């Protein structure tokens, strides 16, 4: 029995939310649909933990879908790289499902709850499938499942603010163009290699050099995925989509959606193509490195001038994505590990910050701007406490998770690139203190004129407390994340040899 379970884990972790989304849509009762969603996310989380343990033993789990042998059939691959985004997605989706219990009925209305949760599970299934699959075309299908589901989820914010519709529309159009570019790239690679399996693709690509279709295909794939991952000049869909989505959706998307795409970016750069290839070296040094540095500063500066808090956090996400791509672009083992560490920590940090801000929005019953935050810190001490800890983690103060990722990023940068990049990293994280302080000042030092009395609801702050605890825990004992990220970097670099 357990053997069968273990053998089929890679597909179960995708099928569990995918199938349950079909059940949830049939249920009219809001509470029951929430319970079912919660159970599904708990189950998915347990399955992904089992997978994590299994990967520590086997290091490479391959699952042939429908029992068709890999190079021809679709293969699902779980290795030390793909397990990291799976853990991120399943844990954040569990926490944000708990978080959504009170907020979802308030924001989208009781009647459409079950449909929203159905889309919610579909988005989770799409994201997990995206990172599980080892087939380049299957990846496109999952990319579209997750992005169509998240577009519909973003559009659900329309009950509160009609701008959510335009945000969802832009997300859809830009996302679809990105996905189509990716498909063009896959098609070009397929035309020269005749395979879609990623491992097979990387083996066959080694035998081909200086082919124009290969260069064009690589360019299309990278651009398409960079749109999805919101790497700097291709990020315009992100701030609007995150800020007008219903709160729980913002938490889920901000913490997981771009991480999955960043993982795909790493996969394309380092495992389908070879790191020692001139093409990749040029792309890393002259495209991704400058764009990441621009992203770090552009995101931070936009966040400093932003008044709407959800949008501010979205802009800061763009800067944080810049740190992750910067780590990838340096291209040494240590820096790729640092990229994965920051991917994990940023999911925790941004998840926590979005939870804190959107729960303030719930109590205020309106959009959170910098001006109507004033004095609320004293009214809601638990949320404020968590908010402060997550902010410190974002700024990268010692004893928080953010410190660990900055530490490893800087260590990796010093050992391989010029010292000037280290200064840029430090400078932009110092700049991020400005917008964090702006919020903390409004929350704590300003007086509350309207004298709102707020009773904090345990249903809302419980997941916020958990995520804050994780932020501190992984700041004190980072061995788990660091080890698995280094394992991931080793696998990624070894894959291409």
């Amino acid at each position: 029995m357990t053997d069968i379970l273990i053998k089929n884990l890679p597909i179960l972790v995708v099928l569990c939310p995918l199938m349950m989304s079909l059940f949830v849509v049939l249920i009219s009762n809001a509470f029951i649909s929430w319970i079912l969603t919660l159970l599904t996310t708990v189950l998915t989380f347990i399955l992904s933990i089992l997978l994590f343990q299994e990967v520590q033993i086997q290091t490479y789990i391959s699952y042939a879908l429908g029992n068709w042998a890999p190079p021809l059939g679709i293969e699902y691959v779980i290795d030390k790289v793909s397990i990291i985004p799976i853990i991120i997605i399943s844990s954040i989706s569990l926490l944000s499902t708990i978080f959504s219990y009170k907020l979802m009925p308030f924001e989208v209305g009781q009647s459409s709850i079950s449909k929203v949760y159905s889309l919610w599970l579909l988005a989770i299934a799409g994201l997990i499938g995206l990172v599980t699959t080892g087939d380049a075309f299957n990846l496109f299908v999952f990319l579209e499942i997750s992005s169509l589901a998240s577009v519909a989820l973003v559009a659900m914010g329309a009950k509160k603010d009609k701008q959510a519709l335009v945000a969802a529309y832009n997300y859809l159009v830009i996302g679809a163009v990105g996905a189509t570019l990716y498909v063009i790239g896959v098609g070009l690679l397929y035309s020269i290699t005749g395979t879609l399996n990623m491992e097979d693709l990387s083996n066959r690509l080694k035998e081909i050099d200086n082919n124009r279709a290969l260069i064009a295909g690589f360019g299309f794939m990278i651009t398409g995925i960079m749109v999805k991952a919101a790497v700097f000049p291709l990020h315009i869909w992100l701030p609007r989509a995150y800020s007008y989505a219903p709160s729980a959706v913002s938490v889920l998307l901000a913490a997981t959606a771009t991480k999955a795409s960043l993982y795909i970016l790493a996969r394309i750069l380092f495992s389908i193509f070879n790191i020692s290839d001139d093409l990749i070296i040029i792309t890393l040094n002259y495209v991704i490195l400058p764009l990441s540095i621009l992203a770090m500063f552009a995101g931070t500066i936009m966040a400093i001038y932003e008044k709407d808090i959800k949008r501010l956090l979205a802009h800061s996400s763009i800067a944080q994505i810049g740190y992750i791509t910067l780590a990838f672009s340096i291209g040494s083992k240590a820096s790729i590990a640092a990229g994965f560490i920051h991917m994990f920590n940023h999911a925790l940090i941004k998840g926590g910050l979005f939870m804190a801000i959107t729960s303030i929005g719930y109590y205020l019953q309106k959009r959170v701007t910098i001006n109507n935050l004033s004095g609320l810190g004293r009214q809601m001490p638990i949320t404020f406490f968590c908010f402060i800890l997550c902010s410190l983690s974002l700024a990268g103060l010692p004893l928080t998770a953010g410190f660990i990722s900055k530490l490893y990023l800087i260590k990796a940068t010093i050992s391989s690139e010029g010292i000037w990049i280290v200064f840029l990293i430090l400078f932009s994280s110092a700049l991020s203190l400005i917008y964090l302080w702006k919020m903390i000042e409004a929350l704590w030092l300003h007086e509350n004129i309207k004298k709102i009395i707020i009773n904090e609801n345990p249903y809302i702050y419980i997941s916020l407390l958990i995520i804050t605890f994780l932020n501190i825990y992984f700041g004190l004992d980072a061995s788990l994340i660091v080890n698995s990220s280094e394992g991931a970097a080793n696998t990624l670099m070894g894959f291409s040899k």
Partner: protein
Amino acid sequence: MPLLVLNQERQVKMISSSIGIWNYWIVFLLMMIGLFLVIGRKNFLKKIVGLAIFQTSVFLLYITFGKIAGATPPILNEALDTVYSNPLPHVLILTAIVVGVATTALGLSLVLRINSEYGSIEEDDISAQDLVDYHDEIETSKKLKSKFVK
């Protein structure tokens, strides 16, 4: 790599004609028309149409890869030396068509909702309305702006 070899043979044939395989020119043309509509048009409906054209060009691109000069449709027959066209791109495109239909449907339903909420589907009208709303929100909350705790 049989496909590569066949492609190379095809390339030799291609050079003999001056314009090459003109499917690719059509793909290129459709792709540019589609992308231009998505980027250049301010009308939300026209953008969706552009997106559909853009995706269609990719379908044609894949179908063209699958075609091998002088080959028969991939149906098994008795002769051993038959060259078959590659059926896999067709199957992939079936999937991509489904995805394209879903994208278009979702896009059109969003356009409908936008039209009923804003009374327009022109990007300029909508962003003007949004800007007014955004400023209203910031300004009203500015009036309540608090003092420092003394």
